[in-house]
């Protein structure tokens, strides 16, 4: 078990006064079988009244607006979360249900194309070829993950939100979102339900994904994917690095793609050229021998 303290901080700096800013934040870790949220505090400056609710996908949304003119906005979301090890998926789970109508209907929303996962036919052809007539779902997904890692190199700053997936693949580099979208796109083309996960990764280097040596690290938000393994459930996989998804992954929420779980989005009245700084600081809480056995 790991206990992590996460500080998500976003700062907007505007060259002149802006007003009527309305924002939606998705930065609160979810609680599920593998993690538990212990505390969550949201602070904005200028102060704003925050309305929170759980959206259709199960993610907590914090909605807040600042009407009066301001030239700076900072959003700080502090959370403490406990994470637990995850079991490996059932290796013998069959791929047959992927072709079953009832199974497909049940997972329909994670099989259909979504804006960020639309790609030309070549990526889909490659995925179908790789999955082929494999009988084991886990092996099929692993083949796809290997292909994503072959197609893309981890290189921050080479892509932007909303870039066409074919362009990303053609360019051959990207960040975690691109890895996740590519995997999801390929899985769906091969008939495997897949969804996008937004979260935090307790690793100094996202492309390596190993827990850090220092206690506190500064990172970006992370993204990975979950694929449906028949008869077992959603299997979280991180195509960006070679580490299995585990205690150092903190999930915020999932959706069809980036748009459903974008960490912070909004509108404001003012000049277009704002400066946006996002940082995520994660530190591991030291626990006594007794606590960690609980």
């Amino acid at each position, binding site marked *: 078990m790991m206990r992590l303290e996460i500080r998500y901080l*976003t700062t907007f700096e505007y060259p002149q006064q802006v007003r*009527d800013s309305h924002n939606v934040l998705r930065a609160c870790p979810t609680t599920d079988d593998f993690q538990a949220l212990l505390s969550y505090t949201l602070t904005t400056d200028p102060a704003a009244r925050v309305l929170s609710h759980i959206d259709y996908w199960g993610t907590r949304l914090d909605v807040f607006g600042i009407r009066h003119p301001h030239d700076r906005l900072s959003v700080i979301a502090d959370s403490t979360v406990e994470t637990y090890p995850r079991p490996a998926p059932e290796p013998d789970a069959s791929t047959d249900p992927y072709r079953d109508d009832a199974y497909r209907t049940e997972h329909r929303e994670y099989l259909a194309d979504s804006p960020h996962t639309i790609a030309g036919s070549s990526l889909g052809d490659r995925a179908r070829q790789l999955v082929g007539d494999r009988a084991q779902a886990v092996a099929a997904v692993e083949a796809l993950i290997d292909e994503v890692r072959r197609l893309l190199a981890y290189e921050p700053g080479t892509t*932007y*939100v909303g870039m066409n997936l074919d362009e990303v693949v053609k360019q051959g580099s990207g*960040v975690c*979102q691109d890895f996740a979208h590519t995997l999801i796109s390929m899985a769906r083309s091969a008939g495997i339900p897949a969804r996008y996960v937004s979260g935090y990764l307790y690793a100094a280097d996202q492309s390596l994904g190993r827990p850090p040596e220092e206690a506190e690290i500064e990172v*970006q*938000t992370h993204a990975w994917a979950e694929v449906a393994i028949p008869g077992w459930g959603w299997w979280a996989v991180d195509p960006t690095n070679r580490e299995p998804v585990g205690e150092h992954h903190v999930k915020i929420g999932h959706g069809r793609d980036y748009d459903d779980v*974008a*960490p*912070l*989005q*909004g*509108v*404001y*009245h*003012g*000049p*277009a050229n*704002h400066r*946006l700084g*996002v940082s995520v600081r994660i530190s591991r809480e030291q626990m006594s021998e007794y606590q960690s056995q609980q």
Partner: protein
Amino acid sequence: MLSRHAEDLYWTGRYIERAEDTARLLDVTYHGMLEWSDKDVPQAQRDLLEVLFLDETFDGDLSDTAAVTEFLVLDTDNPGSITAAVERARLNARGLRDRISSELWEAINTFYLDLRARDLRADIERQPYQVYRWVRNACQTVTGVAAETMPHDDGYRFLVMGRLLERAEMTCRLLDVRYHRLVDSGGAATAFNRWAALLKSVSAYEAYLKEYRAAVDPIKMLSFLLLSPNFPRSVRYCLRGTEEQLAELLEPDRLTDAQRLLGMVGAKVEYCDIDSLVNADLGGFLDELQRDISQVGVAIDRHFFHHATDLDLHFYISR
């Protein structure tokens, strides 16, 4: 009120005024042509299009009166046509139905529906005078209904302001284009008719006669259309009217760009020396006036509707 509502009201005012002024110009050109020789026709049509700033948009034959008329009345691809202006005014009004009186909406909508129900092409062929008078009446109905059924609050002020600014520009354009031709045209009888036509196109003929009797004197006429303090289509009247509406809309102790520009162009008109202008560069003066007035429009747009060109609603999404 929301700035987009204010903007829609302002443009409704402008569109209706544009439709009315276009009908007036067409009417007076049509009647003028009855007295002119055929060789004057292309020039008269060019003048007409120039006043409306549409001389470059129109690519047909200038000697084809019907083509020019259809372009100005029917052509929905021409944003300056009567039909297009009424359509846009109606579109704005439809979005404003909870802001304007239902009578005003009905007046605009009826105007639009009647316009569509008519066989305008046949009507302007057979009885153009009747069509123009009908358009003018419909526009004045809209204006009158607005004045009598809406509270004279901020929304109404935007409507009035749009109308007055459009009209001020239109009168300037009219003078700018017509004045040269009139001064050059010589022959007393033709000249008289053309002067009278100019006055009639802005319904100023009778008002002018009351003020100056039968002396159709270019300088007096020019000063009447520019300077009359109480004739509602004179440039001065429109500018002062806009200024009054602005003063009511804004706080008294701070001067906005729009007010500053308006004060300057107002003073330019009021203190101009018409006699020496006529002998010097009247055309340049009128051009400048038009530019200034359109700058007032830009300043109003910026102050009320689009604070600054780059100050807009922006969507952002963080990575």
